[in-house]
């Protein structure tokens, strides 16, 4: 097994990591950095629970090798709030009642943030499309979609 030395910025902090070739970004976050907010729902890129921002783009972190992330900027759910101030997508999700079991929540929040970064005033159709890769079994999505609309109306907050 080969190992790779990588420099990454995770949640605004620089990190130097040594990662094996077969380690996924999800494993690096959860196991090496103990950032367990990123969830493992399928390890196959199908459920979206492990979604993180990789250089501003939402990706399934189970489908990305850690070794590929040299020089990357990564934001996980733990990095959304700044100075204890929740990101609008977090505030809005609480207000809309879009949290139930919470296991899809981190991925939902990252996809919502990514959408609002590229499109600050999305239509309902655009919100539905942006969340289509994040499976939720509890809520029926309706309050989650509502929360993204709410967050779009709140004070902008660029992550």
């Amino acid at each position, binding site marked *: 097994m080969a190992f790779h030395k990588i420099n990454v910025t995770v949640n605004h902090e620089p990190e130097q990591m040594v990662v094996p070739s077969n380690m996924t970004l999800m494993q690096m976050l*959860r196991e090496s950095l*103990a*950032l*367990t*907010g*990123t*969830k*493992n*729902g*399928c*390890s*196959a890129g*199908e*459920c979206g*629970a492990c979604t993180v921002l990789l250089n501003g783009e939402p990706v399934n972190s189970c489908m990305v090798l850690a070794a590929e992330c040299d020089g990357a900027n990564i934001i*996980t*759910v*733990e990095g*959304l*709030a700044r100075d204890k101030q*929740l990101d609008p997508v*977090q505030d809005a*999700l*609480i*207000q809309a*009642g879009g*949290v*139930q*079991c*919470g*296991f*899809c*929540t*981190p991925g939902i*929040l990252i996809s919502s943030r990514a959408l609002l970064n590229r499109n600050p005033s999305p239509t309902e159709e655009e*919100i*539905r*499309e942006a*969340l*289509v*890769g*994040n*499976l*939720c*079994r*509890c*809520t*029926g*999505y*309706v*309050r*989650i*979609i509502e929360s993204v609309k709410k967050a779009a109306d709140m004070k902008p907050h660029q992550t």
Partner: protein
Amino acid sequence: MAEPKIQNSSPVGESTPRIDAREKVTGAAIYTDDLQFGNALLYARIKRSPHPHALIKKTDVARAKALPGVKAVVTGEDFPGYIGLYLQDRYIFCRDRARYVGDPVAGVAAVSEEIAQKALDLIEVQYEALEPVLDPEAGIRPDAPLLHPDLGKYVVAGFIYPKAGTNISNHFKLRKGNVEEAWDKCAAVIERSYRIPHIQHVPIEPHIAIAKVDERGEVTMWTSSQSPFAQRNLIAQSLGISQSEMRVISPAVGGGFGGKAGVSMESLAVAIATKVKGHPVKLRLTREEEFFTAFVRQGLSAHFKMGCDKNGKLLAMENCFYWDGGAYTEYGVNIARAAGYSCTGPYEVPNVKGDSYCVYTNHPVGGPMRGFGMPEMHAGLEQCMDELAAQIGMDAVEFRKLNCLKTDSILATGGKIHPIGLEECIQKAANAVDWGRKSPASAPNKRRGKGIAAMWKAPAMPPNAGSSAWVELAEDGKVNVGIGGQDIGQGAFTISAQMAAATLGVPYEWVRVAAPVDTRYSPYEWQTVASRLTWSMGNAIVNAAKDVRKQILDLVAEAWDESPDELDIVNGVVISYKSEKETPLKNLVIYGLPNPDGRGWKGGPVIGRGNFMPKDVTGLDAETGQGEHGVVHYTTGAQAVELEVDLDTGRIEILKGVAAFDVGKAINPELVKAQMEGGLVQGISSALLEHLQLKDGFPKNANLVDYRIATSSDIPREMQSIIVEVAQDDGPWGARGIGEHSMVPTIPAIANAIFDAVGIRLEGPPFTAEKIYLAMLDAGIVK
């Protein structure tokens, strides 16, 4: 008691924010897989049967044991004890016979998941393949291969009736009136059959258990669980240890829907851990394993015959259900029972013959899933109701309102129904979709339709399933509530805090729930199933909070030389309506109060306890299903949908979905509505998309691409949730459960709307575009 001068604002009935929302949106909430165990942690993998039905002739684990990094290899030889909730019909690992594809035959613990996986390939198992049973109706034939030759010897609960020498693990019978004589009096009779496929719960968090056995043999298990106490009980029994020697800790649960109730994979982790004492052993199902080695919703083959008189009054039903229970039956036998005693649906029917069989097959193990047999059973029943209404020339809503249970209606099992708001639910759901008015389709190639379905469901549980709770206060006067029920997303912790705060007289924000649930420190709760927590655990919490309240008021009354009746607790302050004295709780709940004469102190740390158990549930007769009070209560309701069928593709789009349920009292209305929305979408998903394909016993779509669940693009354009409140006499504030009910009537509501749109009916869900299109071709609707 004197008239209160200060209005205590109760959080019950308010939509207080979820108690766990902030930790869940920040990634701080801890789920089982997030726990850190350090370097002693071992990883388990399971060797599984590749055959649906086979004898195990020989197992050789020598090569696996020799692999560096492997710490233990176990097989069925190591664990001779049976396990099972209602019927002890399985071993933890197969011993002589494998009964489904995926049946565990051996387990490995190793220093890494990769090594554990590699070791599985080195385990050699010789099988002798046997003919499988792949259909429940084939399984009851006398010449069917017998799956459980020892069925007659298994330990079984008193209300389950297995038939030794057959594949029938339970046969529930309901007999009322005289069905044969009734048919002649009917002006319309209809007979239909339906098949409901297996589906899977698909929690986003797969099953996981970490078990550790210490030098004394005491077991600790961390697991994502709806049933920590039932797991303690059943696993301890199977391993031959005492229940108090087994501790189950359950952190946040990433979705349950019934799949994490009882014991499925958890006993495997514990069994392996007994061979590597001191090491925590982690077993985490892959998504593929999750689909067919955790519980599935069992399949159903259902036959209905029903008739009514010329005025539309139901006269008779003869319903027969064959449940595809799978290889073993943790809950399946009780699902068959629940469907049997509920087989009339929420209607008054004077003549009933109901038979519900749970049948062993070589399919994945059927378990409880949101609705516990009711969505499957209502799927056919509520389509028959529409067809019978049409045959007698009645509107489907009027037909249901005429026949539905009203307060004091006689149940098919005998006895009367409690106060019930079903008729109101049916009418409100119909009104919300503008029932009776046909709206134009959105395009020339589309057809629009509306459908409605009603439902009922009782908590299906043993008559003495109990709850308990404790309430204690800290130096600051704030409250800690101990419960053994689990928050699986439904909001159980939130409503627990609301009920404790309201009973005690403190602000909602002052209450926290002692989580995670830990069988060593949390009070007993039977299981987080059956939509029973708000009602049963809620009563225990109220009793515990009342106990605290009484201790505090008695103490203050003595100190102030007043009657407790003159005192109250308002916003965390004890007040006297008589003397207008007041003192905050923090002044007395730990340190007590000084005696007025200055000699010594009274009181001390306050802790309250409460429990609840249904007191008056009677059994149901084995031959007739009759009993005065067979279940604690029924939650009832209705759903209505409006949809469009695309004639070019067969694709169905749900335009509007409406749910109306009689919840007795909504402790937290927004949480109740969230249950109605989530259930509706899960119901839509099961109606349009979901089918665990089992070809010759082999799962064919055990992944989230080939087994699709509803995404954000599949939900209705518009949803509406209507709360009806006809109080439950023994519920806290009149509340009864709602968690499961919201996906019960969805399949038939959609099926009825499809019929309204294009005039076709299918044998069963999922109503995929392909099946709809082919049915439209057959019917000549499209060419």
